[in-house]
């Protein structure tokens, strides 16, 4: 069992293209859920539309790659309007229902036999991002960072991917520190109050849904380009829940929360995967207990355990603000009286407050 191998696998997972893709998509979800309080349970639908926008435009219609990306983004914007216009005047749960359904409907329709001429059906579409790799300025070879090594192809995707993440995070930073972002956060707290102060809440919610959806689609585009392949079943509902997981892990409603969350999530997942395989390989774990084929599922159980522990001890996420978190927990129900805290937590919190 080689610790260096485990750590380098984990490091590759944490910095690799997939972590960048998830970070980008989660930045979009953070605008919805973390800042505006929109319950979007179908973020994967935006990724799907982005990915297929590229794949279909290039592989089926022989369009240029940039046009594919544009098609993906426009499609995601339209999807956001389609989902938002009818539901955002209603209570928050209606958007949740509409989005989770939309994600599944799109996946199933793209999978269907009748859609095969355009979407490739279950086989999906492949080899459409050649133009992206053709402009790779990085000379071929292997690039290392300590024990980590990446091919020139990976480095190129990572460069673009993390560049996009940085750009999105910077844009979000500017937005949430503006009056516009203040309105979004206020809507998250109490939309009636915001309405009473003369803000067009519906308009802001639509803007938020479209903006987050576009960033989600950018993640999907990157995913398609990185894999050079799309199949509908890549866009399972579980992707959305990974995004929620890493968003809450990093700290929802913080600018860098989703980025840190994604890095950490993929670090833990790759670490668990590699450690289990190494342990089996070295004979620490009998193959009769865990077969190598079980590792894929078991690593999620381990990561889940880690997340449960983290959220028990730090429910606001890594970058979140505890004072804010307590308000969120206490906001419902009795806004007038200070919340009575569970007795076993009183002493610790008093100390904490005294220290501030």
């Amino acid at each position, binding site marked *: 069992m080689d610790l260096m191998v485990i750590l380098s696998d984990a490091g590759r997972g944490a910095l690799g293209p997939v972590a960048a893709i998830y970070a980008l998509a989660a930045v979009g979800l953070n605008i919805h859920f973390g800042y505006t309080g929109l319950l979007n349970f179908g973020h994967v639908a935006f990724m799907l539309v982005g990915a297929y926008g590229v794949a279909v435009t290039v592989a089926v219609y022989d369009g240029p790659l940039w046009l594919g990306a544009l098609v993906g983004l426009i499609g995601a914007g339209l999807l956001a309007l389609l989902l938002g216009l009818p539901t955002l005047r209603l209570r928050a749960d209606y958007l949740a229902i509409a989005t989770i359904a939309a994600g599944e409907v799109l996946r199933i329709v793209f999978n269907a036999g009748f859609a095969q001429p355009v979407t490739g059906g279950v086989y999906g579409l492949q080899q459409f991002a050649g133009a992206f790799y053709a402009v790779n300025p990085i000379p071929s070879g292997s690039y290392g960072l300590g024990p980590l090594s990446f091919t020139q192809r990976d480095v190129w995707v990572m460069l673009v991917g993390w560049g996009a993440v940085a750009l999105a995070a910077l*844009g979000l930073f*500017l*937005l949430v520190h*503006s*009056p*516009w*972002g*203040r*309105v979004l*956060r*206020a809507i*998250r*707290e*109490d939309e*009636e*109050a*915001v*309405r*009473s*102060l*003369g*803000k*067009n*809440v519906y308009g802001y919610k639509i*803007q938020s849904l479209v*903006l987050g959806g576009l960033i989600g689609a950018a993640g999907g585009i990157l995913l398609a380009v990185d894999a050079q392949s799309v199949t509908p079943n890549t866009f399972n509902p579980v992707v959305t829940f990974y995004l929620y997981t890493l968003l809450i892990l990093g700290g929802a409603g913080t600018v860098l929360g989703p980025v840190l969350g994604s890095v950490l999530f993929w670090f833990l997942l790759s670490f668990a995967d590699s450690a289990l395989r190494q342990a089996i390989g070295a004979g620490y774990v009998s193959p009769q207990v865990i077969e190598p084929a079980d590792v894929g599922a078991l690593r999620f159980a381990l990561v889940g355990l880690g997340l449960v522990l983290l959220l028990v001890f730090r429910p606001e996420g890594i970058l979140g603000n505890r*004072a*804010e978190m307590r*308000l*969120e927990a*206490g*906001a419902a129900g009795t*806004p*007038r*009286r*200070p919340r009575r805290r569970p007795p076993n937590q009183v002493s610790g919190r008093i100390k904490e407050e005294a220290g501030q």
Partner: protein
Amino acid sequence: MTPREALAGVAAVPGAAKPDPHLVVDAVRRDFGGMRAVDVEHLEVQRGVITGLIGPNGAGKTTLFNVLTGFDRADSGHWAFDGRNASGLPAHRLARRGMVRTFQLTRVLSRLTVLENMKLAAVGQRGERFGPALLRPLWSAQEARVERHADELLTRFRLAAKRDDYAGYLSGGQRKLLEMARALMVDPALVLLDEPMAGVNPALRQDLLGHITDLRDAGRTVLFVEHDMDVVMTISDWVVCMAEGRIIAEGPPAAVAGNRAVIDAYLGSRHDEPEFREGR
């Protein structure tokens, strides 16, 4: 002649015409299933005075507030604010036109600081539009002005020390103060206060009373719902009483306090003497 003196000549009958009405309500009805919650034939609210809206529980006062401010829709009827039609307009447009309400259960924005609560309410902020929001120089000067104004109001409402705290950590009374101060950031011409004194301790009540009369003295119109008769009788220039959705009486405070229909509505039709306590 001040707006208050102008009221002296107005007859104390339901639906009485006012010399300078700020809000005019006509035939507004709101049904919930088979129950007619609001059935207001005609109501005029005089500009620049404090009008108290009273009535027993379930009289339809809050529903009328909700309808007039665009938070609920009327089944029929129309109303005009400042001489322009206001019926059916969405809440945010009415607020921008200068008709701002507060809520019976305070609605502070918990995970925003007190200052952010205030700054949010300023109208016409350039940085609230998506594009300019990205470019700080386009709105930073305006933001600084908004912040100065917010700080002035916070000082006036004795919330300056809480400026950077999350609003969710304020006490019930402080929330009432914040809500009123925040409404002022909109610079409203007509303020509708839904039970501003509910759940407030006597010391703070004096403060709030002062703030409400200040609103009038600054030339704003105030319409408020309140259950505390001391408060209503002390600060109102005019009192309107609702029962079962209808306006059953209106007039100067003393006239309404002695009105037969009002006493019947509060106490039932069998009673001995009015039980309003003496105003201070």
